[in-house]
């Protein structure tokens, strides 16, 4: 409650301050005085604060008495002060200059702006109600700079003759402050009190006087005495012990023995040391031996006095010794070891680390001409590095004759004959030749290709004898002869159709026989159809039409899907066809004499790829994508599943002996199976870089087989099968025949052996056939 009115009051007070300030400043004629004045002023302000507070408390409430005693005292003091001031005022009234007291007095006496009105409160005491202060910018200029003398840095004595001492910032004269009461000063100077210094105490503003004590201290300092009064620098000595011997001892006890008998304990310790010295445990100090030349002589002793051999540890690899020098390292080697110019240049050109010899052999005709070896130190250093830095590995070096590793093979003479060169080239097909076959007599070659024609050539000359166009859009996929020399019949698969034809080549008798064989079935088909009416035949054998019949094409029947493989039974009575895309009718067996088609498998596991009759037994083999199954035809049961382990079988062929099988696969493998041995391949041959299309054994008694691949090559192997069960088949690679060009990633599509000669014919994707002899 109290502070607010106080502050308000104070602010009201400060309004008048410019005047007061002016007074204050004009007061300072001297620096010292100003400082003094400041101090005084600050004090006076404190006083004033207190007084104001009291006043306010007086004003505000009756309980002000309760507040504190000091306040009341101050009030008394403040009451006194105005009285003093009034007295002063009387002295210097017209001057219109005032000391701080005067100003305060002014404050107290006349308050020109009546910014309050007096009312009466509840108790009947007067109550001051102040008007609101307008807080404008200039309302509080308590921090306005004090008036300053602007005369600058000149002695004030220049103004001695003037009533003022300078000018303030506004150009107004600053009046000389009053010098106090000159008379008082005079009186003071006459009667100097004790302890007078002529100085003014800055703390109180009164003349500084020294007290009696202080004067005493000053005196002592002047007299070079210790300033402290009670301190005695030279105290009298107090003797705690006396130097005089007492005539009468204090104790009558006799002197103890130990005073004159030597100590036993000490002598014990000494004796201990003596004994140690005698025993040599303690040696007299010897200065450390200086290093002498004998330092070279390290103590040596027989370190292997009781040596014990340690068994060799397998992980311990002793450092290999350096090889002894060869002839080329000699200082005077045989002349053939010296490098010629080319070798020298080559040696110099190679990088130092890549040389297989770190020096060049040089010859010196006398020992005195041999220079020092430049890299000696470096080589030794590298050996050191090798010894501790190089990993050591035991490597067993194979030191055997390489011949012993090679398998023993039959000599080349034993392997002959086999085809080596291309003897005849059959040109004529437009587009790929898909299939070919040599007739059982070995004179004719039939081929069929993408152009839909079947052509018959003379094998030896390469002359085309006969041709017929069977398909307009479909390609001729397979061409196979019936395996009989008596009647010549050619089976052809074009798209979904199968044709049996008798080409008009060679002996007319044979030709007519062939016609007879084919015609024989017509009647049976008519009869059989009546007898077995209950079951729908798989297909109907028909005549192909007059135009084709004139050309020799006698029978035609069609299956549901494209026929890819035809294979004949050895007797020529049956043949099988394979249509890989067909489901249940993939494999069909056809009987020539009855013109009958049978579908032996109701369902096949996997896509049928190829099928073949066993050369001697009533066994039928069917190859699906991954397996080859052999069926007993008489018992009609599954005999064996052969697992070549290939991804996709392309073709297979059975050895004429019947116990071995070769399988060609699209994943570039040629597999030899020994059926007696295992269902797994006996040998896996991978010599082709592309898929294998066809494989064939030689059927005429020669131990040969061949494969045709998409890389455009044919490979001929010697594959000898011995009747002895214990002996494995000997397979020897013989020859790679290259000649067909690869077209659209297709190379050789089919091959066939001559029935008796070691001749091979191959059909290429480049539209040619080749005879290899």
């Amino acid at each position, binding site marked *: 409650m109290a502070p607010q009115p106080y502050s308000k009051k104070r602010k009201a007070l400060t309004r008048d301050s410019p005047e007061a300030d002016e007074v204050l400043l004009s007061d300072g004629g001297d620096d010292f005085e100003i400082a003094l004045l400041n101090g005084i002023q600050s004090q006076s302000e404190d006083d004033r604060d207190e007084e104001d507070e009291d006043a306010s408390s007086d004003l505000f409430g009756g309980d002000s008495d309760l507040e504190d005693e000091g306040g009341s005292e101050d009030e008394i003091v403040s009451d006194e002060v105005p009285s003093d001031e009034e007295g002063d005022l009387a002295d210097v009234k017209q001057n219109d200059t005032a000391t701080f007291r005067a100003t305060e007095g002014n404050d107290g006496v006349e308050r020109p702006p009546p910014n309050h009105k007096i009312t009466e409160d509840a108790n009947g005491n007067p109550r001051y109600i102040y008007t609101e202060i307008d807080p404008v910018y200039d309302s509080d200029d308590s921090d306005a700079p004090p008036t300053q003398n602007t005369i600058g840095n000149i002695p004030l004595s220049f103004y001695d003759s003037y009533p003022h001492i300078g000018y303030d910032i506004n150009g107004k004269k600053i009046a000389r402050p009053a010098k106090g009461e000159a008379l008082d000063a005079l009186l003071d100077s006459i009667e100097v009190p004790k302890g007078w210094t002529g100085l003014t105490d800055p703390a109180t503003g009164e003349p500084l006087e020294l007290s009696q004590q202080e004067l005493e201290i000053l005196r002592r300092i002047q007299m070079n005495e210790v300033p402290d009064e009670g301190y005695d620098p030279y105290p009298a000595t107090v003797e705690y012990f006396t130097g005089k011997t007492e005539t009468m001892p204090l104790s009558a006890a006799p002197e103890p023995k130990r005073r004159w008998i030597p100590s036993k304990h000490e002598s014990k310790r000494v004796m201990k040391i003596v004994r140690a010295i005698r025993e040599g445990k303690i040696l007299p100090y010897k200065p*450390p031996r200086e290093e002498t030349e004998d330092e*070279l*002589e*390290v103590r040596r*002793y*027989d*370190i*292997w006095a009781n040596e014990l051999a340690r068994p060799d540890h397998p*992980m311990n690899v*002793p*450092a290999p*010794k*350096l090889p*002894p*020098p*060869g*002839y080329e*390292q*000699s*200082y*005077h*080697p*045989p*002349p*053939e*070891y010296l490098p*010629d*110019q080319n070798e020298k240049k080559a040696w110099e050109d190679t990088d130092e680390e890549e040389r297989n010899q770190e020096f060049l052999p*040089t010859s010196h005709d*006398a*020992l005195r001409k*041999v*220079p*020092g070896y*430049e890299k*000696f*130190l*470096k080589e030794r*250093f590298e050996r*050191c590095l090798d*010894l*501790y*830095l*190089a*990993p*050591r*590995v035991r490597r067993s070096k*194979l030191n055997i004759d*390489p011949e012993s*590793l*090679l*398998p023993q*093979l039959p000599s*080349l003479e034993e392997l002959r004959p086999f085809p080596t*060169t291309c003897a005849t080239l059959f040109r004529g097909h437009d587009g790929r030749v898909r299939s070919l076959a040599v007739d059982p007599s070995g004179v004719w070659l039939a081929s069929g290709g993408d152009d839909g024609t079947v052509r018959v050539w003379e094998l030896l000359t390469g002359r085309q004898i006969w041709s017929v166009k069977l398909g307009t859009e479909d390609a001729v996929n397979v061409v196979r002869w019936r395996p009989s020399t008596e009647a010549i019949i050619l089976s052809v698969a074009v798209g979904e159709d199968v044709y049996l034809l008798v080409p008009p080549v060679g002996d007319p008798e044979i030709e007519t026989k062939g016609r007879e064989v084919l015609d024989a079935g017509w009647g049976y088909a008519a009869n059989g159809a009546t007898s077995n009416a209950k079951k729908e035949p798989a297909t109907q054998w028909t005549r192909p039409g007059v135009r084709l019949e004139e050309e020799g094409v006698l029978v035609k029947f069609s299956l549901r899907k494209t026929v890819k493989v035809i294979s004949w039974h050895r007797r020529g009575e049956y043949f099988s066809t394979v249509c890989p895309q067909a489901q249940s009718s993939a494999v069909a067996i056809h009987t020539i004499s009855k013109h009958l088609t049978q579908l032996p498998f109701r369902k096949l596991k996997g896509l049928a790829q190829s099928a073949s009759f066993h050369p001697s037994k009533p066994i039928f083999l069917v190859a699906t994508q991954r397996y080859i199954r052999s069926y007993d035809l008489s018992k009609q049961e599954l005999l064996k599943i052969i697992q070549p382990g290939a991804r996709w079988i392309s073709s297979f062929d059975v050895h004429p002996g019947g116990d071995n099988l070769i399988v060609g696969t699209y994943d570039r493998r040629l597999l030899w199976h020994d059926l007696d041995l295992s269902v797994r391949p006996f040998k896996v041959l991978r*010599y082709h870089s592309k898929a294998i299309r066809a494989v064939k054994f030689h059927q005429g008694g020669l131990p040969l087989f061949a494969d045709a691949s998409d890389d455009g090559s044919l490979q001929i192997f010697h594959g000898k099968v011995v009747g002895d069960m214990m002996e494995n088949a000997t397979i*020897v*690679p*013989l*020859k790679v025949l290259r000649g067909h060009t690869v077209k659209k990633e297709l190379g050789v599509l089919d091959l066939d052996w001559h029935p008796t000669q070691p001749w091979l014919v191959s059909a290429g994707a480049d539209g040619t056939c080749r005879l290899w002899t």
Partner: protein
Amino acid sequence: MGRIKKKGTAGQAKNFITRTQAVRKLQVSLPDFRRLCIYKGIYPREPRSKKKASKSSTPSTTFYYTRDIQYLLHEPLLAKFRDHKALAKKISRHLGRGEVGDAARLEKKGATKLSLDHIIKDRYPTFVDALRDLDDALSLLFLFANLPSTSTVPPKTIALCQRLCLEFEHYLITTNSLRKSFLSIKGIYYQATIQGQDILWLVPYKFVQRVTGDVDFRIMGTFVEFYTTLLGFVNFRLYTTIGLIYPPRFNAKSYEQGGELDAIVLEGRGIEEPKQIESFKGHVNGEVDGGTVPTKTNEEIQKQIATIKEGPNAELDVLEGQDQYQALDQEMNDAIDTFETTGDDADVLPQPQAGGNEAGSLFAPFTFFLSRETPRQPLEFILRAFGCKRIGWDAILGDGAFTTNEADPTITHQIVDRPPMASLPEELQVSESPSDPPPTTVVRPGYRVPGRTLVQPQWVWDCINQLKLLRPDLYAPGATLPPHLSPWVKPTKGAYDPSAPLAEQEREGEAEEAEGFSDDEDEEAQEEEVEKSDDAAADGVALAPSASTPATADLQDDHGMTIAGSESESEPASEADSFAGFDSAPESDTDPTLTQHQRELEAEAAGLNFSETLTKANGQPVKGILKGSGKGDEARKKAAKRRREEEEELERRKMMMGRKKRKVLDKMLYSNRQKEGEAEALRAKRRKIEARRG
């Protein structure tokens, strides 16, 4: 199902440890680890699978066997290393404070040398093990014995190396166990056999070694420290086994005067073998009591020699000496008796040959004198090791000579290595000055003292390698020396042997084949020859007029016609090679005209100019056609055919092998072919040289 095994807890992951891990485990710095590895003979390993051995993803390069590192963990040296490290820290601290005295005191206190004795015993449990590993030690110590002292190689080390090497040499001399030696361009190889162990080491020629910046002497120093310790113990053992005191007395005075071998005086132990000691003293090259009687007149020396002559161990006459040795042999009881089988059906057990003493008696009867220009140190060592007792040399070569008088009449052999003078006056020119107490005889250079054999140094080496005295006239001064051959190369089948005649080593028909090819090469060789002779002329050495230019020209004429067809024929041959077929190439026995025609056709196909083809190939074929069916041609054709057939056969057989086996075979064949190719190249060179020589 068992518990799943945690990865990296067994097998390779556990058996191998990377270098960083090892260093961390041992808590030493890398240089200290290196030292430790060198001392203890620990070396990195190559794990079978690096990936399994290293646990981190980054590939580590160096692996150690974990057991090895564990074994290092208990090494007392490790504690020493740590002490050293602590001491080094203290010293550096004192130095940092400027307390030099304290630092010096500490340094003195810590200067104790590392003792490697236990490591020697540890690494080489038996003495033979130590001998087996002496190759590198000797090579390195002999190198250091010949190094100048630098800041990195303290003189003390060098002195120690020199002494140890000399001691070892002395042992070899005493026991005559040096077997072979070889002068190579790198230095001199020696081989000794001690207790059945062959030790081969290399000593550099006495030249200042070139020190390159990449040689770290700290590493070498570590090795040297270890090897000196090893050789010290080995020497001790060797000396004590033959009854000598180790260390032998070291004659510092003689050493300073370049005495080398003479600086070490062997002493026998006790009274057991006084005779042996006598013989050892005899080794000290005539100066048996040089220490006691320093001033000796020449006559006295002569007298002494006379007494030596009379003694049983020293003979001058060869025959006499041999007789005596035979007598000695019979007297000896230590020798093995020969066992003769009585029955026919008994097996014959092989016995070692009683040939140990041959080495000791090879040079025994002779007195050698080494001329100023010969390398004294190796010659002295070898001669002494092979029984020579008296070796004199020029005073320049150092102290310890039997005689420094070149004109000494007792000298039987003189080793010279200087070019012969143009005129050789066969008289002795001795300028004697009788006034001086020791009469100095000076043989003027170029003069020859009669009555002795003069040989070049190589004679000594060739003699000891073949263990017999060779004809000295082949090694006479100025003579063209026979090639110096390495005694360690054993003739193996298929490898080239320079000592055997060429005809024995050739494949059949190789010479005929080669005849054809050597046409144009001959010209080159001729050029070379000319250059060489130029060089030789510049050197000022008279070259024997071996294959002069007219001779070679004749040769060329002789061969010109027969050879001419070679180039034309080589092409079809190579063609046939590339043709991988069985068919015997029909071209092989066709007329050259046909081949030429074929070549022309080929050229046409290739789009070459006709003139170009002519210039390229036709120049010689014209001749070839004229005389096409030369002998060389046929041989070559035949050989080519045969080779091709063989190759085909091999290919055929290889096709039947498994992949792994085929790889092994290929490797073997490759290396065999490499060797054969080298041998063939050498044979071809020799053929050429021989042809040029005529």
